[in-house]
């Protein structure tokens, strides 16, 4: 094991941070912040039963942001050399020169910083990033490889990877706020390729999140992940093509919540609300989802990839209700967009790294449980589709068009699951998707393992969740008519 790097607060002493904040506002900016980060990323990949990749990367540096009115200037430097940081601060400050005259901002660096004292949302005693050494990670991969291959002779190829990210950051701003946090993420991904005559199918499964080392020994073993991937691939060999058309769709709990993330969550992010490019701008108090549907975003979910103590602007994580019983009651806010619209930041200011300025982003987003039994939601459908595993999804927040890849689905006939279906794509419009919900199950699960969300080229880990949910009239893409 390597010695721990020096703490960020010694690489970025308070006097230097105060000087950078001053420099960043030297052109007339009304607000500035400094974000320092040290991240260690490791990756091990077993492929064709060979450990092909063993990698280690360090990302470290400082980003400086200057804001005047609605305008942001941003620059960063790799590393912590004070002269490079001063240059970054001067570049960020130049934004103010481009801006029209605005009210004069306060000048002078804060004399004292207030340190954010938000409690940790959960206690991570022995994070997997530190608990597992190289040999332990390789052992997890070998076990997954063995388990997947021995599941079925039709499993002909297996890839398994284990990656970790240990990230420490410090953020301070010209209002005098100072916050530090660290996150420890790890993830095991297993994919299995099944072959049978001319057929080939692949399936994958994941484990991990903001978890302890013991998680991989008890909660989610490599054998369990491998079995899920291998049995999924073999199942797809016998699956049929989906029927094209628009009909009832029941979406699984847990990762199925990627639908609410894409179809609804993105349009609730404060930047598009402030700029009124989101269809949700101005819909506060209106019915945007079916009665009984409550939608929440919270950075406090234990063990999830989407959780943290403070966001990347230093705002403590919180729980925000977006929709209560179908009615839009609140939006997500980062600091800039909250300030410009007279709201309070909700702990949703997030950035991919010190190389990026913060954007308004979701954390863990889910639909609260309802009263239906999951079996009844399926049992009431005469002809429809049950989506058991979803792949990726996307939305255009301005026009609302969304789509999802369904990697494993089942045909519903007369209330029963009759046969597996592959390659279904769900399509629709976010304007009315949440209004098309006609049944919410009681089986809420939050997936804090899988999600990575992309926005403006920045990728952030997120959690998504929901109970089993039924939609009426979703377009299902397929080749069978």
């Amino acid at each position: 094991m390597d010695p721990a790097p020096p703490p960020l607060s010694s690489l970025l002493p308070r006097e230097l941070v105060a000087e950078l904040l001053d420099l960043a506002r030297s052109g007339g900016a009304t607000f500035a912040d400094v974000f320092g980060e040290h991240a260690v990323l490791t990756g091990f990949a077993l492929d064709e039963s060979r450990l092909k990749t063993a990698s280690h990367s360090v990302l470290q540096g400082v980003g400086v942001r200057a804001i005047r009115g609605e305008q942001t200037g941003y620059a960063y430097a790799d590393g912590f050399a004070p002269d490079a940081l001063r240059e970054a601060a001067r570049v960020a400050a130049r934004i103010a020169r481009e801006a029209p005259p605005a009210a004069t901002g306060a000048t002078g660096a804060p004399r004292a910083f207030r340190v954010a004292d938000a409690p940790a949302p959960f206690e991570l005693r022995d994070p997997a990033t530190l608990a597992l050494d190289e040999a332990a990670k390789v052992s997890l991969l070998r076990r997954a490889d063995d388990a997947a291959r021995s599941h079925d002779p039709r499993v002909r190829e297996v890839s398994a990877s284990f990656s970790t990210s240990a990230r420490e950051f410090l953020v301070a701003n010209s209002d005098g706020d100072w916050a530090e946090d660290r996150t420890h993420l790890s993830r095991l991904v297993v994919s299995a390729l099944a072959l049978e005559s001319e057929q080939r199918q692949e399936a994958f499964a994941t484990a991990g999140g903001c978890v302890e080392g013991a998680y991989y020994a008890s909660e989610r073993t490599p054998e369990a992940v491998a079995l899920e991937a291998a049995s999924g691939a073999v199942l797809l060999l016998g699956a049929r093509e989906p029927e094209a058309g628009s009909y009832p769709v029941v979406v699984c709990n847990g990762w199925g919540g990627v639908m609410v993330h894409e179809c609804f969550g993105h349009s609730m992010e404060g930047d598009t609300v402030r700029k009124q490019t989101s269809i949700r701008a101005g819909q506060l108090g209106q019915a945007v989802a079916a009665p009984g549907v409550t939608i929440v975003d919270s950075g406090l979910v234990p063990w999830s990839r989407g959780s943290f103590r403070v966001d990347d602007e230093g705002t403590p994580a919180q729980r925000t209700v977006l929709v209560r019983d179908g009615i839009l009651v609140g939006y997500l806010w980062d600091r800039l967009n909250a300030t410009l619209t007279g709201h309070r930041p909700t702990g949703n200011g997030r950035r991919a790294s010190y190389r990026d300025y913060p954007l308004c982003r979701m954390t863990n987003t889910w639909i609260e449980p309802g009263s239906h039994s999951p079996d009844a939601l399926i049992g009431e459908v005469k002809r429809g589709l049950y989506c058991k595993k979803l792949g990726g999804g996307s939305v255009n927040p301005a026009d609302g068009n969304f789509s999802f890849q369904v990697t494993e689905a089942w045909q519903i006939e007369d209330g029963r699951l009759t046969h597996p279906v592959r390659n279904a794509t769900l399509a629709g419009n976010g304007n009315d998707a949440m209004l098309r919900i006609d049944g919410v199950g009681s089986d809420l699960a939050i997936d804090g393992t899988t999600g990575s969300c992309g926005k403006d080229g920045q990728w952030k880990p997120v959690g998504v969740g929901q109970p089993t949910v039924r939609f009426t009239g979703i377009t299902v893409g397929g080749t069978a008519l």
Partner: protein
Amino acid sequence: VSGAARHASPAELLASCERALERAHAHGAEQADACAEGSRAFTVRVHGGAVDTLKQSGTLGLGVRAIVGGAVGFASGTDLSPAGLDDLARRAVALARFATPDEANGVPDAAAAGTPAPADLGLHDPAAVELSPDRKIEMALELERLARAADPRVTRVDGASVSSAGGAFATANSRGVARGWEGTSVSAWVVALAADRDGRQQTGVEGMSVRRLADLAPLERMASQAAKRAVDRIGARPVPSARVPVVMHPDVAGAWISEMAEAWSGESVLKRSSWLTGKLGETIASPLVTLVDDGTLPRRVGSSPCDGEGVRTRRNVLVDRGRLAMFLYDHYHARRAGTASTGNGLRGWASTPGIGTHNLYLEPGGESPEAILRRVDRGFYYDDQGSFGFNPVTGDYSFQAQGYWIERGERVHPVDGVTVAGNSLDMLRAIAAVGDDLAWKSSIAAPTLLISEMTVSGS
């Protein structure tokens, strides 16, 4: 160092690579290579007639791949001081102990790498470097203003952006290969929004990324394209499910060939995870189809004199008039397959090489897009899509789609809320016309295509 007035030169990067190699050997590596990048970029985004964000980026990073006992370790970082490079080399060597020895691991020698392309590829444009922040702000504001002015039904512009970047890349290995080069890029994007019924809005996106400022399309054309796309969609509605001919707009055709590219990866073929496994030499597409990956095209975004392992780039014909002609390889998978690298070992400073494409394109045919449209009696003109819907193992294709319904060779009304599905092998064979309208907006390009039958799923 970022914050400085310019990015690192290829010679400076090569010197860092050589030092990293020397340290890797000192720590016990038998073979090693290093890859370094230095770049600077400046991005302007405007909104509502004013600057929204200005961002300056500067990257300087290096990765070391060390081979010890036939096994590979890799480390990367941004500290290029002598101590930082020594630390990277030490870590890469230490990590190799955990990897599996494999006789195919290694770095190419000078003969395998080939002589670098002698011709100037025109990848570096002084005008792009000199494009000032003020000028970029002017351009972005102009792009936004023109998009709004193009049509009264454009109610908002969801941002316009202009950025420029310059960078250098170097790679060197312990068998004497050392290559470095410089390049620039300029890009511009605009998103127009048009109000539709029931509070809905429609979007129109247009933009491109080029090596040289002079290759950027006129701002007026980009703005009017974005506006036209948004307003033409007003009133879009689903159509009933049907199997019909589909006309693919070049953007959609390009996205399809980009999704398919992995099937040509020698790695996927070795692992039998490609739907083209076992089909080399067979007819897999209509005779109208010639698919090429070429890293030597002058001025193109995906061009470079060599790949990330220092191997000279070249023109690779993947499909020759319908026949599957070859697969793509980096050095490792070429050795596994008993062949030579095709110059497709792509990498950035923070990753090991992986098989990828340079400039991937479908060669244009002889028909105009208008003539292709006139051939369709009843079908779907497909010009925008969702992001997820391709299965790289089976080639199955199923995307959320937007476009227009076609009757008797004319676009009769805009369509959304549908999907378009098929299997790539069936689609390749069903290509009935290839347009003459190949245009480059990125490193992937295709002309208009007519596919004789796909399934449109709708109401």
